């Protein structure tokens, strides 16, 4: 077992993990952040996307030991008292169908907007290339991100 200190959604967790523990399993099973889901388990679908030190990463493709000393934001830590503007925009534009890809989509969108606060439709589609929606509901997802970009202008990034 290896000791790791990882800040998850603002709370520091000191834990013992097997080196082979994937970050997504650590988050779900040791920290209880089941909002982060396992989708394809082959680095393709992006459902398990989290922010690792502020940048999007696929938590099925990171070992928990690699995240030692880092800060993780999951979908559960995104909202404050109110929903994050990206979450609100997904609700407003019906940016989800079955909802399984949503945690990853939302966090990828947050990452995209932090980098490019005013993306074109093409840039939104490209920025989300690491996330798959098996319902193929991309149209409303793109609309949601565009709306979030508008509502976030001049406000929280």
């Amino acid at each position, binding site marked *: 077992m290896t000791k790791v200190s990882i800040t998850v959604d603002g709370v520091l967790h000191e834990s013992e993990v097997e*080196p082979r523990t994937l970050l997504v399993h650590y988050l779900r099973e040791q920290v209880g952040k089941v909002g982060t889901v396992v989708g394809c388990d082959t680095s393709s679908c992006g459902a398990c996307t989290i922010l690792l030190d502020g940048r999007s990463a*696929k938590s099925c493709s990171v070992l928990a030991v*690699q995240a030692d000393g880092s800060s993780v934001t999951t979908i559960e830590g995104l909202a404050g008292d109110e929903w994050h503007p990206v979450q609100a925009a997904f609700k407003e534009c019906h940016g989800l169908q079955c909802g399984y890809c949503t945690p990853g989509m939302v966090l990828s969108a947050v990452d995209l907007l932090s980098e490019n606060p005013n993306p074109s439709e093409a840039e939104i*589609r490209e920025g989300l290339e690491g996330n798959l929606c098996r319902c193929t509901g991309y149209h409303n997802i793109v609309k949601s991100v565009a709306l979030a970009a508008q509502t976030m202008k001049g406000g929280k990034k």
Partner: protein
Amino acid sequence: MIPSKFDYVRPKSVDEAVAALKAGGEDSKVIAGGQSMLPLLRLRLAAPSVLVDCARIDEMKGIKDNGDSVTIGAASTHWDVMNSDIVKTHVKLLADATATVADPQIRHRGTFGGALAHGDPAGDLPAVVLALDATLEIAGSKGRRQVAAKDFFLDYFTTAVGPDEILVSITIPKLGKGWGTCYEKFNRSANGWAVVGVAAAVKVDGGKITEARIALTNCAAIPVRASSVESALKGVAVSASEIEKASQSAADGTRATSDLAADKEYREHLMRVITARAVSCAAGV
């Protein structure tokens, strides 16, 4: 899927990492970003006894301008590389090709050195370092050595990096005045692997191409230079039709395989078409 058991060490220096690899024996493996390693571990295609994490070794990070060349630490992420002003200004071909690697999440974690040392024939960056005549620094228990890009890639997933060695940095000469570059990639989905990719650097003087360097992705077990196209382009006028003519020999010397994405004949056709596109783009046509 859950990887099989392994030990994990995170050395602070290259020397410590080399010692850890040696102590771990032949089943020890280097990990940095882990974006190639994690899929292999999960599918249990790799079952190392020890993983030596080089992601936090200072010497293996950072991007340095040496005047006539640029040195990039092997553990620099794709994100670091494509957003580096030094790379964007002096090695634009690398910045452009890196921006096409996988997707944002993987570019945030995956490393330049990792992508090279992994030696995947469909990876985009091996062709770039081959086209730009880069030099790779490898550290091992017997010291350091410099390997030219043309001698670095040996076979499918096999490079000059030995079992107890580590790729430390990559030095890429600057091209200078009159050169244009382009990475052209043909793939079937947004974040798919290259069916064929072409890294082109072309020098233009007085409306004519005076020198060309072209390397192909996924056209053999290792990246290959399209030498006959390079020769055919010398002295050619910068025009789409002349470039297309000179690109007809792009498949010479390649060993294309057939797979689900393309059979050999189609892949060879793509080499000619994508080479012409990459050269035209690099020459500003």
